């Protein structure tokens, strides 16, 4: 109580004393919110991947992923997602430097990357459900595959909508370089989706 009073009376010194209270992201507090959300989201993915690992290790009859899952399409999808992460940082760099045309071009490419990813995933699922006869009801191999890649695909869809909104706001002049922090926050989400795909690609397809 006396400390609180001291902070109020000695203005400048209080700032020095109060170091522990400064935000983790002083330039943009929304970033902190996104990081907290991503930590929770990472826990969801982590739990799902751990459950997949436990089911797979515990089952000696688990099929080899190579028997069902081709990696040509997914390797291209991985590459597209990495490229769209690069276009996202370039879009952010554009708006931070006040270069709105660079922002719009690279943001459009980022959205395009997400759409391409989703299109290829739809193509892959169509192939697996049709020719390969996979089904979420068939066995745990199929169920874990569709749940993990499907949950990730929902995240990509969410990211495409998120980035599209920011692109449109930039194109219509509602988003200005002064609010580039919003793009940085969207970038965190988009790179996280890329990061999760890197892990899913390895754990589901390659191993």
């Amino acid at each position, binding site marked *: 109580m006396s400390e609180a009073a001291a902070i109020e009376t000695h203005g400048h010194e209080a700032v020095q004393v109060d170091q522990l209270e400064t935000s983790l*992201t002083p330039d943009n507090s929304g970033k902190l919110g996104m990081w907290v959300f991503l930590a929770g989201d990472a826990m969801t993915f982590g739990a799902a991947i751990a459950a997949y690992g436990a089911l797979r290790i515990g089952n000696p009859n688990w099929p080899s992923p190579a028997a069902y899952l081709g990696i040509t399409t997914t390797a291209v999808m991985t590459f597209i997602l990495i490229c769209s992460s690069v276009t996202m940082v370039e879009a952010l760099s554009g708006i931070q430097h*006040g270069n709105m045309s660079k922002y719009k071009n690279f943001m459009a490419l980022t959205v395009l990357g997400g759409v391409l990813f989703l299109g290829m995933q739809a193509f892959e699922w169509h192939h697996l459900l049709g020719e390969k006869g996979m089904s979420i009801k068939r066995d745990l191999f199929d169920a874990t595959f569709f749940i993990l890649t499907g949950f990730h695909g929902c995240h990509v869809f969410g990211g495409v909508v998120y980035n599209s909104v920011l692109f449109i706001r930039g194109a219509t002049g509602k988003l200005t370089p002064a609010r580039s922090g919003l793009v*940085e926050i969207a970038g965190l989400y988009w790179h996280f989706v890329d990061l999760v795909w890197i892990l899913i690609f390895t754990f589901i397809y390659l191993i």
Partner: protein
Amino acid sequence: MTTQAAVSASPVHAEHHETNYIAVFIYLSILTAVELGVYAMSLPQILRVGLLVALAWAKAVIVAMYFMHLAMEKRALWMIAMTPVVLVTFLCFMLLPDLTTRMWTHFDHKIKVPVSGEAVGPPAAQVPPGASGS
């Protein structure tokens, strides 16, 4: 408006742009190519899995550090980023007892298993159909 623009051009932001994103992209592409190479090679299973997991984590760390700017943020933000990693590691250890005891199932006869006819649980629950009339 002008002051805000000036803030966004401050050294804090300029520091972010020192990252060479094309170099990061090339590293990620090379690591992906190496992963596909490991996938194609016929290595012992343990080495194969170890290499693939290590490469995947290396890529994930690069994305977090440079694309998500974690390398340039305050150190304390790491605590938030590391929380799910630590918790999922604990989760994996919590799943281990189940996985490592699966092969014990053929010792189950040592545990007292109720033999048919022996009274288990609520006795009135399993009355033979014929006995219900008397």
